[in-house]
């Protein structure tokens, strides 16, 4: 009897475990080709991108279909994922033995972490013949001078402004210097504009745009560039950036209750305030017209919207034509077949980039595709981008994630009056030390 019982018990447990394993299994066993294998061998690649809505979603699907037409041996499984899911899914997927072959890549410190862990393919040699056509933005997808990702869109941050409010306040030309900007704020206030500048401080990163840009104007290109690898913030320019941020905050240019204002959600957001004529300007990325459009009653980009670059700062070591920006790209994971980089080359070809530009969901990077950008404001923005002496990626992206987010938090605290300029530098130093 005891023997039977024991067998019973074992069988029951086994059944339970088997059920569980069956439930957990079901992963794909598609073999992936080893790099350097036969190029005509059938391969399947998975592609994770963040365009979950049209027109982006069908655009990517059509790119995958077109590539398959030209290369019948390559199957691409396209999987759109919500943007927010990437931050949790990518680390887990790269830890596993079955990561996506092609995945969304924002470059900077996160890419450096992935490269350090050996999870991303070095594309330097394979992309050498054509990477030059993608402009200066490609730097952001490099680690130690090697290319680990390919950008397909890149935009820069600047001031979006309401021309009629500027006119009403008697501001002739967009502010060219920081003093002009402060002057414009005063003029707008005297003209009865309650919120000269709209800002979405709830989200923290809009605060960081000011600090980042002032650092870019005050610090030399060399100091800026090195900070992303040596995390040295001893140069006085970093504290001066914070001092100037304070100067701006003290001028009280922002809307009432700006610390709780989101950047993009609803008519009460900073983009919504600008879109509905309640604020005169906002320092924001190239995507702002698209966001504003969705926040107006008639779903149109408001008339009289203008764009001007971040003003120059006298006595700063940085170039007035340097720009702060960021973009999207793709990387090939360590498991990806050689077709991956070939596919990315196809994705950023001039024709495909033109089609991307026409969709008005981002600014293409390939040389010759600028013509697809029709909006006059965006045309001016692309021109400034292409002629920039140096493009600095948003610091929260350029730095290791833990340092970048700590920096954003510290800047947000300065906007809330909880930290001074030196305190922000201290906070980023201590985050870098415990990185």
């Amino acid at each position, binding site marked *: *009897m*005891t023997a*039977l*019982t024991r067998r*019973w*018990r074992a069988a*029951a*447990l086994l*059944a*339970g*475990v088997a*059920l*569980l394993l069956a439930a957990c299994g079901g992963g794909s066993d598609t073999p992936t080709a080893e790099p350097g294998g036969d190029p005509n061998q059938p391969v399947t690649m998975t592609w994770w991108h963040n365009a979950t809505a049209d027109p982006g979603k069908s655009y990517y699907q059509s790119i995958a279909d077109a590539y398959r037409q030209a290369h019948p041996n390559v199957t691409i499984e396209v999987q759109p994922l919500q943007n927010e899911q990437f*931050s*949790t899914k990518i*680390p*887990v997927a*790269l*830890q596993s033995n079955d990561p996506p072959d092609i995945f969304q890549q924002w470059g900077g410190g*996160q890419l450096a*972490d*992935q490269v*350090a*862990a*050996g*999870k991303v393919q070095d594309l330097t040699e394979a992309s050498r013949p054509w990477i030059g056509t993608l402009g200066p933005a490609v730097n952001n997808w490099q680690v130690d001078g090697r290319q680990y990702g390919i950008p397909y869109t890149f935009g820069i941050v600047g001031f979006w402004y309401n021309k009629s409010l500027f006119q009403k306040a008697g501001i002739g030309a967009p502010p060219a210097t920081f003093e002009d900007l402060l002057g414009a704020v005063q003029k707008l206030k005297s003209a009865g504009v309650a919120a000269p500048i709209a800002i979405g*401080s*709830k*989200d*923290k990163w809009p605060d960081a745009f000011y600090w980042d840009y002032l650092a870019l104007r005050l610090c030399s290109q060399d100091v800026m560039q090195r900070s992303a690898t040596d995390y040295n913030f001893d140069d006085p320019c970093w504290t001066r950036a914070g001092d100037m941020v304070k100067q701006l905050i003290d001028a009280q240019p922002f*809307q*009432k*209750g*700006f*610390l*709780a*204002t989101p950047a993009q959600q*609803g008519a*009460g957001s900073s983009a919504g305030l600008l879109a509905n004529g309640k604020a005169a300007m906002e320092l924001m990325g190239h995507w702002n017209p698209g966001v504003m459009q969705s926040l107006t009653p008639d779903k149109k980009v408001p008339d009289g919207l203008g764009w001007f670059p971040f003003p120059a700062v006298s006595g700063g070591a940085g170039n007035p034509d340097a720009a702060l920006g960021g973009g999207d790209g793709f990387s090939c994971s360590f498991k990806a077949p050689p077709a991956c980089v070939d596919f990315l080359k196809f994705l950023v070809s001039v024709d495909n980039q033109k089609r991307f530009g026409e969709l008005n969901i981002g600014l293409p990077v390939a040389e010759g595709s600028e013509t697809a950008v029709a909006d006059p404001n965006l045309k001016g923005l692309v021109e400034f981008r292409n002629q920039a002496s140096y493009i600095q990626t948003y610091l929260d992206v350029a730095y*290791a*994630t*833990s340092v970048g*987010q*700590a920096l954003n938090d510290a800047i*947000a*605290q300065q906007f*809330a*009056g*909880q930290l001074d300029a030196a305190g922000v530098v201290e906070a980023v130093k201590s985050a870098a030390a*415990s990185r």
Partner: protein
Amino acid sequence: MPGRKHAELALFVGPALVVYSMFVLLPIGLAFWYAMYRWNGIGPLTDFVGLDNYRRALQDPAFLGSIRHNAIIIVLSLTLQLPLALGLAVLLNARLRGRALLRTVVFAPFVLSEVITGVIWLLILQPDGLADRTLQAVGLGGLVQLWLADREIVLYTMFVVITWKYIGFAIILFLAGLQGIPRELAEAAEVDGASKPRVFRHITVPLLGPTIRVWAFLSIIGSLQLFDLIWIMTLGGPANASSTMATYMVDRGFRRYQFGYGSAVAVILFLISFGVSLAYQRLVLRRDTAGALTRMAG
């Protein structure tokens, strides 16, 4: 037949036990393990730091502030929500017209999802929003505040939203408890000349004791783990003024990619919740559960 009994036990408990171990016990164990490393989530665990993550967390003013915010929410819940919910429950237990409708109305917010609640209240509380305009319309314009942007006020604003959201649950529990109190007791007391307040104080409240104690337990645990509403409405800001242990944990773990450090925070949150639960079970709930268990064994 003990053999058969064991087989049945194995058959029915086995699968559940395996699932429980894999999805509850193992992750808890892993959190303890990760918490001893400095780890950005990618690559192998190599940078062993021992208890350093715990030390850093307990020295971080932002985390200590989060613990304090959780404690404030617990105290406010117990001192303000309890009398409010009790009063409303007694009111809704009385015979009055439209009682069913009123009960539904009071319970409705609890059924709403946290996201919808958060978005509705964001609209109500935005500057010059419904809350401000209502106050101005009734001549209380002087009370208008920057509800979510003022660091001194935001936590209390959040407490009001939390109360609005969860009070329906307390009321339903108390109503159920009130239904279980025999009417004869109150009637007998009234015959003996007891006033309404005395009946409430000496009959209703003591007999509602077990329900109140269970509600308080759920409220404390819920307050300790408070996350969704805060994350949607303030992201813990401005400048950490409304952060909780859970928002701090998600911020450090997933926004900053410090999974080792985030795990240490998770372990601290777990230990606090676990400690409070155990203490509460032993010190407060003992007589309630002891009675039940004794009856079952007997």
